[in-house]
């Protein structure tokens, strides 16, 4: 009897989880479906779900009109570059706070997080003026730095949480065996924290890839990533939903595929230490 209830509950839980999953995924699914419709079908009322004349016309128009590869390349450089630099700064910073804490470590962590509490638009003009002075407007370098800085608090917080789970005694033992600071971080700490670092890396690539405020405001023609590519397909006068959906699908496809392949690592990293 008990077994029966368990199975039923399991089934219900599974169905519930699938329901929630589909609900969350539905906007993306709808975008993908719309990208295969004509503009007239995209706005049809009642909406058509699966039974329409599937067309690749929107993808052809988007390919013809925009240089997708240029936007894609910029996205790869910005997301990859900002994450790698962020991790390079974040690992030593998190190490020091996790293993050599001071009285003020908690305050420093909170202070770092406080930068995320200010709306980005509040510092738009100072940053814009700085970028003009430094000649960084519409450059990949400038945008990489900004994306790295806005994600750095998250990187440090995540790494700090993972590092706290690693027993300090192991590092002490390494030190007694003659390991210097470099060896300690590179050969002892990093291999043990690989799942945590990997999930931090992946999450930050996703965050940087999808970042749309700074990437739209600080770029023009040269450094514009896929967010600008999507924005260029919205129209105030004229129907654009199908073409916009095709552009969005093309923009999210790489990151969706990356997420799909690395989901095990991502989930493992995000739940790392949660049960201890």
């Amino acid at each position, binding site marked *: 009897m008990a077994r029966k209830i368990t199975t039923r509950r399991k089934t219900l839980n599974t169905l519930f989880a699938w329901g929630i999953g589909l609900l969350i995924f539905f906007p993306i699914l709808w975008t993908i479906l719309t990208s295969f419709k004509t503009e007239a079908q995209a706005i*049809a009322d009642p909406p058509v779900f699966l039974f329409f004349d599937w067309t690749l016309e929107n993808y052809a128009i988007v390919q013809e009109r925009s240089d997708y590869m240029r936007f894609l390349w910029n996205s790869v450089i910005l997301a990859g570059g900002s994450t790698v630099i962020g991790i390079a700064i974040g690992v030593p910073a998190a190490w020091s706070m996790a293993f050599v804490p001071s009285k003020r470590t908690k305050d420093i962590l909170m202070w770092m997080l406080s930068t995320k509490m200010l709306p980005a638009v509040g510092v738009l003009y100072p940053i*814009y003026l700085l970028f003009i002075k430094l000649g960084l407007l519409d450059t990949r370098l400038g945008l990489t730095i900004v994306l790295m800085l806005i994600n750095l608090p998250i990187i440090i917080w995540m790494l700090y949480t993972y590092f706290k789970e690693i027993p300090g005694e192991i590092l002490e033992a390494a030190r007694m065996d003659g390991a210097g600071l470099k060896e300690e971080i590179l050969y002892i700490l990093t291999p043990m924290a690989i799942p945590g670092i990997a999930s931090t890396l992946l999450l930050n690539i996703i965050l940087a890839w999808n970042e749309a405020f700074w990437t739209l405001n600080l770029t*023009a023609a*040269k450094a514009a990533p896929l967010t600008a590519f999507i924005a260029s397909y*919205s129209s*105030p*006068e004229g129907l654009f939903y199908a073409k916009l959906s095709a552009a969005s699908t093309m923009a999210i496809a790489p990151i969706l595929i990356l997420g799909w392949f690395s989901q095990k690592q991502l989930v493992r990293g995000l739940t790392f230490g949660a049960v201890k």
Partner: protein
Amino acid sequence: MAFHIRALLGACSVAALCVPAAAETLTIATVNNGDMIRMQGLTKDFTEKTGHDVEWVTLEENVLRQRVTQDIATKGGQFDIMTIGMYETPIWGKQGWLVSLDDLPESYDADDILPAMRGGLSVDGTLYAAPFYGESSMIMYRTDLMEKAGLEMPDAPTWEFVADAARKMTDKDNEIYGICLRGKAGWGENMAFLTATSNAFGARWFDEDWKPQFDSPEWKETLTFYLDLMNEAGPPGASTNGFNENLSLFQQGKCGMWIDATVAASFVTNPDDSTVADKVGFALAPDTGLGKRGNWLWAWALGIPAGTKKEAAAKQFIEWATSKEYLELVASEEGWANVPPGTRTSLYENPEYAKVPFAKMTLDSINSADPTNPTVKPVPYIGVQFVAIPEFAGIATQVGQEFSAALAGQQSADEALAKAQALTAEEMEAAGY
């Protein structure tokens, strides 16, 4: 020997004049409208003629507006040419943020630009942006539904006639609504329509002393009329409908009439997208007999930010894109119906263009809008569906939210007007008026 050197120097100086200016790469910010997309496709013609390359930055309208304002105000120098509207041009021209376009060559024939467009893009007679395409608003109506209702649309109807026709055309059981109008909040959305409409009802935003006028009986009449009409003959959920939402409703045959931008005429008559393409008629925006029609005036224009290092090349581009030759180029490639409308007198004198079904009504609508004298009573501002002051966009968006909430049934017309009056008075006082 000296003679040879002089001859050589002379030859060099002549040669230097003959060599064209160095090829530049121009960065142009624009919106994703059909005419702009077409221009991007034809840019190779400009490159072949001048040697200059063009890089396009296409953005959503609100993002574009924020982006170019931010860049021009900080002298960021990101763009050599900006696509701006009739609202920004006089404000930025006055600030000295735009390069004057008065020195374009005679062959450009600036006098050919429609006077209403030229006036709206100039400050004290100096042209600061060249119109790429211009539009007004007009009535697009279903000829079959009008006939079914036993009515005939005059060329210049009154609001009384339009309201009566809308009620008679409405058939809610079959999802046919007599009239579709903008309800979505925004200074360029419902407030563009309502401000233009209020002109026909004798209302105005400000009196000569910049005192807000939302407490006037004319505004009350405008808003009450609009709300009653939309509640009785408008589509459900109209408070979230903007241009594109109404376009899709009209194309699906759900609107009897739609009053909106003249540029919509080419969409609703396009049989690829519109189910009612062969049943559309056009008429001037309505009036109430007070001498002003409720039609607006707008132009998407090309301007050069002051301080650009590529001013000469940028002027060459504007000269190319807004010339008579460009119109002919579009006509030869894509037909006369796809030529950017509303900018040049000569286009409307062209017998080929006269065959386009909405050409005459577009011109009549543009000509009947007067941005320098938009209202029945005198006003201190320029603009038909906007007030050309920097504070307007912010204020009108808030007022638009109040009016949109009234349409959604969340408050009465009186409440919306009282809030509009209070917030406008407060903002204007803070701005030092």
